[in-house]
């Protein structure tokens, strides 16, 4: 069934997303690759939205019909490195394989460069076996720069990752 991708929108999280948030954030298929914990209760979700999502420099809920089905985060580094920002995203499993993550990241990228004008480089580190996420980044126009061996230490495991980047200078100027 084709999903009408115009139904995909991004917006900041709100506390009222806690129930929908829990639906996908309790799913280890979604959280397994992330540094995020796997959530187990609406209380945990509420606290996390309040204490982490709301004050976050740039985090958006991926929505269909304004209901949260995932997230995109952009986290700039600090000090001299603040021109670099890490992008990460997660999507409810029932919405995989429909082009939604690609659409969401495509919407996010120009917004991010506009909202965070000091950011010159967006980067993503994707585990080598996570081919679906690699395809999302490639479709959006990220460049794969290389394979970083034993680079990522997440939840007690060490992984090889592909590093991808998109520079603000990669974006075509608006006509």
């Amino acid at each position, binding site marked *: 069934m084709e999903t009408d991708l115009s139904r995909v929108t991004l917006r900041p999280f709100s506390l009222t997303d806690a129930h929908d948030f829990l639906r996908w954030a309790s799913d280890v298929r979604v959280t397994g690759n992330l540094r995020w914990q796997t959530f187990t209760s609406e209380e945990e979700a509420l606290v996390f939205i309040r204490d982490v999502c709301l004050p976050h420099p740039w985090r958006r809920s991926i929505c269909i019909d304004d209901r949260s089905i995932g997230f995109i985060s952009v986290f700039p580094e600090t000090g001299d490195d603040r*021109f670099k920002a890490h992008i990460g995203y997660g999507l409810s499993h029932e919405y995989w394989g429909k082009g939604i993550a690609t659409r969401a990241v495509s919407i996010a990228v120009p917004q991010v460069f506009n909202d965070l004008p000091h950011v010159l*480089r967006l980067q993503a580190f994707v585990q080598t076996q996570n081919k679906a996420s690699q395809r999302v980044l490639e479709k959006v126009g990220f460049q794969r720069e290389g*394979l*970083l061996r034993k680079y990522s230490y997440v939840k007690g495991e*060490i992984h090889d990752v592909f590093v991808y*980047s998109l*520079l603000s200078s990669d974006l075509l100027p608006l006509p």
Partner: protein
Amino acid sequence: MEIDSCTLKAVSSSPSEKIHLRPMTLSDIDDFMVWATDINVTRFCTWEPCTSREAGIAYINSFVLPHPWLRAICLDDDRAIGSISVTPVDSIRGEIGYVIGSKYWGKGIATEAVRLVAAEIFKEKPEMERLEALVDVDNIGSQKVLEKVGFVREGVMRKFMCLKGNVRDMVMFSFLPSDSLL
């Protein structure tokens, strides 16, 4: 365009002079000043050339002595001609960096120093899974050093590091405990 002197000379496969590594101390200050004031040496370093002996002493006290792993690179007479360090990035990764006085370029000294560190560091730091190096795309001499030792060139990270106010493309290299030294 400025030509780096070490790219013009052939680097020998083994150094013409034997080197060893040892901890640096404040008594190395005068030898330190020789390379730390040299603009050719600091070209790809994040720091500017040192402007006074007092500033050099302050740098040794505040950065060199407390560093978790930093060694002077010495010739037979035990005088320091440069330094090499491994800085933890996180619990499993360390970043190698090195600086050699320009008078000693082109003799395979940096290569030998990096080789010594790559051979020993994983025994000293068994938690380290990855030794990495970030080299400016224009710093061909340093890229050759790492390649000669057996580091793997993983790719060019675009606009990855801010060097003296300019955002630079950097080449990422790594060496793992399972890799072979060349």
